[in-house]
């Protein structure tokens, strides 16, 4: 009963992955700019908006990620990686060699991990977009909340775990599709990464220095 018809078209899956990545990059910069436009009157995250150290410098400088060479390389890598897995899948489907099923399932697993992690990231972006927009206009909100970087990372890790658990539940309930398992493990590994990063920070609210940020970027 439970089927993913779009897996008959691997290039559609790759296109979806790329669109989600582009949209993620655009929303990240857009929400960070909303903070500059006045949302930080009500919400302040110490240590910058972006949580992933790899992109932190670009986001802190409010660069347009979509046209940055770094993003183009990352997007190209994603296409090549998923394209190679899609090729392996089509190769494996026509082969009777042992263990070849692993290659056949790898595409669904990794694309599931990517798509379902991006779903979680988009939910957070859209939620932030609403909160920041209403904050700028001062509609229905007064006062200010400040979060330390430790807290932002812990909260994000926790939300990601929740999504991972949802996907894991769907996986057990819905015919054990490898797509959902990929999403669950993708979310859980991302949450673990964020939890590990949070351990490098103090829970106290202090202004993070550029030095701290640079150290984290190097460490990653």
């Amino acid at each position, binding site marked *: 009963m439970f089927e993913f018809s779009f897996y008959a078209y691997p290039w559609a899956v790759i296109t979806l992955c790329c669109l989600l990545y582009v949209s993620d990059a655009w929303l990240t910069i857009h929400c960070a700019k909303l903070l500059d436009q006045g949302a930080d009157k009500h919400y302040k995250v110490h240590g910058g908006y972006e949580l992933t150290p790899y992109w932190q410098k670009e986001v802190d400088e409010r660069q347009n990620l979509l046209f940055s060479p770094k993003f183009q390389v990352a997007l190209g890598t994603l296409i090549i990686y998923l394209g190679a897995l899609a090729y392996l899948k089509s190769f494996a489907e026509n082969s009777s060699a042992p263990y070849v099923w692993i290659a056949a399932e790898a595409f669904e697993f990794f694309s599931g991990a990517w798509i379902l992690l991006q779903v979680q990231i988009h939910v957070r972006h859209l939620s932030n977009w609403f*909160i920041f927009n209403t904050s700028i206009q001062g509609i229905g909100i007064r006062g200010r909340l400040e979060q330390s970087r430790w807290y932002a990372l812990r909260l994000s890790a926790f939300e990601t775990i*929740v999504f991972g658990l*949802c996907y894991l539940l769907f996986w057990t309930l819905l015919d054990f599709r490898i797509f959902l398992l990929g999403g669950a493990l993708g979310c859980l590994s991302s949450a673990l990464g964020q939890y590990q990063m949070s351990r490098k920070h103090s829970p106290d*609210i202090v202004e993070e220095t550029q030095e701290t940020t640079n150290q984290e970027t190097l460490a990653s």
Partner: protein
Amino acid sequence: MDIIFTKIWWALPVFAVLAMMEYAIGIEHSRLLANNPRLSVTLPEEAPQWRLFSKKRLLTVLLACVIYLLVYFLLPAEFFRFVFGGHLLLMITECLRSIRFLFFFSLARAGKGIEGNLKLSWWYVYREMSMEHFIFAILYLLAFSVSRELIFGGAAAYYYYRAVHLWLTSNRQEDKPDLSAPTEEKQPADV
């Protein structure tokens, strides 16, 4: 998954427990907020004094169980899968999502990583909840269109219903701001 839809006497207690759990988490939220010395997220009115095993709540859950029992025996299996499965999925998702607020408020109470004072109007609270429900309605609709699994369709329908209900509730709030006014005047009447 089929065990839920074929063994109704197992499924209904699961449903009842989830319904009570969703309510219990809501009560815990208000308790943590009410006794929080470091974080003040003030709502314009006092939160109602909820009780977990109130007569009204127990009757509501019981009534829902009876309705689903009738649907199970009288209507096609696909329809039951759609309405009951969708409702179950919505409650599982909401319970998991609500736990993040327990985490959020507990850390604040312990004075870890977050502090401040935020005043929210009811209008804002309902609008934000409505917006999040719309997002989940779209997500489940996408999941349904990809997988053709009826419980995703049911969950999308429930989320959409709740989102519209919350949106309309936000419009009825007395502190609803005048959105047609210039930006600097867009303050709720009584936050």
